[in-house]
């Protein structure tokens, strides 16, 4: 496993958030490692990735409580405009990032998939909160146990609801993934079982 012995910083990632030094590589690091060839990006690809990260417009897909915390990252205290993302697009055709914020139920699954299909590539998905990541506290007949059953997800953000800082951590990790050359989720994995 070539990722042992190599720090994330060697892959070009700037964050030193890996607190558990002795722990084995997580999914995040493994993805970066599996695509070692792509880490050596050409200058043009690097420039494109940089541009994508600096202006990744989210889609207004607020469903439930997490949506309120998603709105609060637009507000002045947690200001997501400093990352170029304050333009929440209502039309999926104009959006890059789908932040699924809230519980997805069976009735909403079809519209969610439709919105995802209407987005143009490259597109990323953040499953915000416990309900979008895994169904949360709702393990019942109507709630989808994780939105990755219908759309491929790049980043899962834990919390119920995650603090705005938590969501921003997720967004920044996504930026770092893109900068490191990791392709969006639909290229490397499909939907979960």
């Amino acid at each position, binding site marked *: 496993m070539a990722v042992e012995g190599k720090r994330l910083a060697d892959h070009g990632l700037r964050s030193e958030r890996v607190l558990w030094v002795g722990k084995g590589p997580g999914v995040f690091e493994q993805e970066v490692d599996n695509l070692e060839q792509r880490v050596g990006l050409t200058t043009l690809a690097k420039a494109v990735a940089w541009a994508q990260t600096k202006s990744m417009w989210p889609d207004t897909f607020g469903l439930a409580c997490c949506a309120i915390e998603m709105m609060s990252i637009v507000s002045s205290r947690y200001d997501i405009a400093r990352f170029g993302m304050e333009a929440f697009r209502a039309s999926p055709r104009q959006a890059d990032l789908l932040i699924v914020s809230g519980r997805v139920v*069976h*009735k909403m699954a079809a519209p969610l998939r439709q919105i995802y299909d209407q987005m143009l590539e490259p597109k990323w998905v953040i499953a915000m909160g416990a309900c979008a990541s895994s*169904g949360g506290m*709702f*393990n*019942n*007949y*109507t*709630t989808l*146990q994780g939105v990755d059953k219908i759309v491929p997800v790049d980043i899962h953000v834990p919390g119920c609801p995650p603090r705005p800082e938590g969501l921003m951590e997720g967004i920044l990790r996504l930026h770092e993934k893109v900068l490191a050359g990791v392709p969006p989720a639909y290229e490397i994995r499909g939907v979960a079982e």
Partner: protein
Amino acid sequence: MTLAGTPGLVEMKVDHGETTLVVDPARLVEACTYLRDDEGFDFLSDISSVDYLGWSDEPVAGYWGGPSSGASAGRDLNTPGTWGLARKPAPKPKRFAVNLHLLSVRSGAREAPRVRVQVWVDDGETVPSVVSVWPTADWQEREVWDMMGIRFAGHPDLTRILMDDDWEGFPLRKDYPIGGEPVRFSGEE
């Protein structure tokens, strides 16, 4: 308040400060019209339905006894016949209960009389719709139909409201499973 004069009244009970009028389902609309026009209950707060399937099957060890359930006299460990003894709760007349919670807004502040109208039905029986009495009953009855499967006769548009239109089954019934998936923990292999 002459609630005892409600047409179709089967029983009137008072518990926890709340008055419950058990009404014959066939005369529900008549009773509700009386309550709205003559007693002043112009506001329908809520229509809830309860499924009592399995209510008296298993003995439940809990707080029993005491003249008014819930008073601390009924929860004294040392009082015989209360906490600890497993008993079955008193059986209910039929499987489903539909409760209409009424409120009198026109009475003005500082009074707020409330009453609960209760009808008992079995699976397959219909309850007359009170949409003609309080238009707000529209969606409430649709929800009771969707979740419990109790039909309301005379409702203009009894379709599913919360579940998908082609959903089968009535989720809030006691014989409908909770659903969901078994949770896999990462320690298990």
